[in-house]
């Protein structure tokens, strides 16, 4: 009898081999919290064990697959590698919480939630008592966001000498935005330059914040806090070591953080050209950047006016609070300098709308991204034109150059999938909260889902910036885990895994 085995279209050994290599090196990330633990005299074994498990798993994966199988990673395998690597990274982040997280992080679902929220730079947390977190655990939370911001595979391509991933598609799955602009002829030096810029900006922010502490302008801004917050600013993450988020710091520190949040929401490729090649004009000439800045101004203005007229804040405080919240939510960072969960409905709606905007392509931010909104708007206008004149030919342009029709279709598909995931997620959260009697309103459920898929972090109600996702049920938390995961990878790489065509020849 002849066996009727179906041929698989995906080269699983190749994917496993590459994931193994990535995991092997990813485990090394535990060195930083180990150092912090040693410095503060805290137990370092949770990180050591976590790192050993992940690296060990990587070595095992490499061993059981034929050596050199990773060179067969093509477009198909790339989707699988990216998707699984990020699931694995979240598990890695979760291990120390599992071992040493105590009551608030020790449950597996909570630990995985926090881990996924970290690597995806979401910033949603189940932590309720920040004073109970050890210094090393707190720094680990921040550090996972920093690693996830520019992308772990981008980092691997940049620094690992022997990681020869041929295609750029692997990176495109990880870098936010519809397509990446090259900084160099070679993928590897593009990745390297992006990480250099990312690290340089992180260093700059750390030094600026630390200087505020040294100069006595902000007593609470110790070097530890400066590094911890720089780690979560540049990736537009939003985790904080403080229960009151950035509200805990002085106005000066808030302005500094605000500046770096705004930079992180802009295209790093443009920032690189503006800073390192001394061509600041590239920013002003870029269509997306101009819309990005325009949206920040409009959103900030709306919030400042609301805060002032509702009497929530006046003067410099109103301006700072309004601009900060507008920028931090729009760029999917999720820091807060005020408990916006207590703001009036109109302000909540403003923030809710901003969750769907996102930063620029090529930034570390989440959400739909400004360029997709821009191009969708142009496509819609063309549709209207073609309704009147069916024969008219209108190429959609970005920065004067025509955009490929396939890219436009992909953007439309992305936005539809994005909205679909958001709606399903909101339904799941709303249903479980209703059954489990969790205090979540209709807008809250919608905002939680939007916040998770957009990698923003906080939402409204009890899950506001000063609150926690701890009270939610496990189904809601796992729903959010999925939303954060697909949101960070911009949906398509995960969504294709759900198609029959992907697996079958």
């Amino acid at each position, binding site marked *: 009898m002849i066996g009727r085995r179906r041929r698989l279209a995906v080269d699983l050994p190749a994917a496993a081999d590459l994931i193994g290599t990535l995991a092997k090196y990813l485990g090394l990330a535990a060195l930083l919290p180990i150092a912090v633990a040693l410095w503060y005299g805290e137990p370092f074994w949770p990180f050591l064990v976590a790192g050993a498990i992940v690296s060990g798993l990587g070595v095992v994966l490499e061993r059981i697959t034929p050596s050199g199988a990773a060179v067969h990673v093509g477009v198909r395998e790339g989707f699988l590698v990216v998707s699984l690597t990020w699931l694995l990274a979240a598990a890695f982040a979760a291990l120390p919480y599992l071992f040493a997280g105590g009551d608030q992080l020790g449950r597996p679902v909570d630990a995985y939630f926090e881990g996924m929220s970290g690597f995806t730079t979401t910033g949603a947390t189940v932590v309720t008592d920040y004073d109970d977190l050890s210094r090393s655990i707190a720094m680990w939370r921040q550090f996972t966001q920093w690693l996830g911001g520019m992308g772990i595979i981008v980092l691997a391509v940049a620094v690992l000498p022997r990681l020869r991933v041929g295609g750029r598609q692997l990176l495109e799955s990880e870098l936010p935005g519809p397509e990446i602009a090259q900084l160099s002829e070679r993928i590897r030096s593009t990745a390297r330059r992006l990480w250099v810029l990312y690290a340089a900006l992180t260093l700059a922010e750390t030094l600026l914040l630390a200087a505020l502490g040294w100069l006595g302008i902000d007593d609470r801004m110790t070097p530890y806090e400066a590094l911890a917050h720089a780690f979560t600013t540049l990736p537009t993450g939003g985790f904080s070591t403080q229960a009151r988020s950035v509200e805990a710091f002085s106005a000066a520190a808030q302005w500094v953080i605000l500046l770096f949040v705004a930079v992180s929401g802009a295209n790093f490729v443009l920032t690189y050209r503006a800073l390192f090649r001394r061509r600041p004009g590239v920013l002003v000439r870029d269509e997306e950047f101009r819309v990005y800045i325009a949206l920040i101004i409009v959103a900030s203005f709306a919030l400042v006016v609301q805060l002032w007229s509702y009497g929530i804040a006046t003067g410099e405080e109103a301006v700072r609070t309004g601009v900060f919240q507008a920028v931090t939510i729009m760029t999917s960072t999720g820091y807060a300098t005020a408990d916006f969960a207590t703001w009036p409905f109109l302000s909540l709606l403003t923030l809710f709308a901003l969750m769907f905007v996102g930063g620029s392509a090529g930034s570390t931010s989440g959400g739909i991204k400004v360029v997709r909104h821009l191009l969708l708007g142009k496509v819609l206008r063309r549709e209207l034109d073609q309704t009147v004149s069916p024969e008219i030919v209108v*190429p959609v342009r970005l920065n004067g150059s*025509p955009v490929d029709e396939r890219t436009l279709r992909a953007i439309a598909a992305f936005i539809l999938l994005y909205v679909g995931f958001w709606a399903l997620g909101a339904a799941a959260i709303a249903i479980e909260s209703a059954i489990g009697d969790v205090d979540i309103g209709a807008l809250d459920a919608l905002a939680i889902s939007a916040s998770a898929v957009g990698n923003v972090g906080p939402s409204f109600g009890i899950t506001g910036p000063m609150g926690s996702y701890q009270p939610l049920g496990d189904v809601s938390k796992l729903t959010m885990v999925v939303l954060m995961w697909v949101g960070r990878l911009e949906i398509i790489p995960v969504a294709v895994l759900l198609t029959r065509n992907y697996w079958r020849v």
Partner: protein
Amino acid sequence: MRIFVIGAGQVGSTIVEALHHDHTIMVLDTELSRLSAIANRYDVATFEGDGTSQHDLAAAGIKDVDLVIACTSRDEVNLVAGMFARREAPRATTVIRTSNLEYVDLWRVGQLDVDFVVCSELETAHAISRIIGVPAARQTDVFAEGQVQIVEFDVEEGASSDVVGVPLREAKAPRDSKVAAIIRESDTLLPGGEDVIGPGDRIVVIGSPQAAKEWGALLAPGAATVQDVVIFGAGRVGGTIARVLLGQGIGVRIVEASKERALQVAEALPSARVYNATGIDPDFLERERIGQAQAAVFAMRDDAKNLYAASLAEVHGVPFTIGIAHEEVSVAAFEHAGIDVSVNPRGVTAEEIIRFAHDPRTQQVALLEGNRYEVLDVTTRDTSRYVGSKFRDMPIHGALIGAIVRNGTAIFPHGEDLLQSGDRVIVFTEAADAPRVVEAL
């Protein structure tokens, strides 16, 4: 002058036709049939050979010529031939024909080692933009850096009685202009003060660009300055026309049947409106109000299609139609069918190239009415017997001085003015008389 022409196609033979009287001409082509067609009609030397072969060029005797014209229909052949000509005959002036604007740009910045580059598409586009600039004009050309314009008009019923139906002496003609010729049926009249322009005549006016526009307004009172032009066909000719018109701030709509080509031209020309449609779909013409355009240019590849589409556009109400006639014979057919102006790209190209072959004192030439008339731009010698005489006293021997350029400024002379040595003279003349006129000046 010894002239070496590479390419005996339509452009080549037009050049030969215009120049064979006064010059020694050698023609090289790969096809014997085209060569013998030329040899049978004109007294020229023909050589069968390849313009891209240095050996063939040398064998044909390119070495001691004064002017090399590479005018085959293939850019690459012309470029290579121009390159070899430069090597073989370093003193000769080289002129090459191209259909690619990129080569024109390269030549302008000195990256192409030839003396002149003539682009059929660009010449055609310029011819059309000049016509569109003057309402009711059939054909126009400019001289003296654009200060002097020659325009051929059809006089129709409804033209202003300021100039039509009255003796020219009493006509209220625009300042700075002169009627150079009245063409009635097949007779041509170099008019005097008592001659009268009538409906159905075709006239040639020489004057300032402003006067040319005023003449247009007098002869076609309804026609306004064109702001909305529809171009049918977005090939090289259509695309170049669109580019030139857009550059002058004229609104352009383009109709192109090929989806791919329509997309390309839409991407290249952001300010044009592009439609992917055939020009012969009445629903489309109606829906997009093509009939409301002030002018339409038909630049599709097929003359027959251009003719039909132009007729259809006229039915839909387009007041002014310009047809691109790729074949010379189509010009007559277009005119017979009522297309207002026909432009033959190869004819325009030949005309541009012929300018290089004239007496060095002659800066520019235009051909009118087929090749029956020429407009010359000649600098007067101090030995000319007309220097110092009044324009009034000059004899009319089938020639008329339309304008002079003195110290770089165009002057439209009156009867009392004197001709001076060194004046550049814009003369309208019968082609057969052209050498005599040049000689006299």
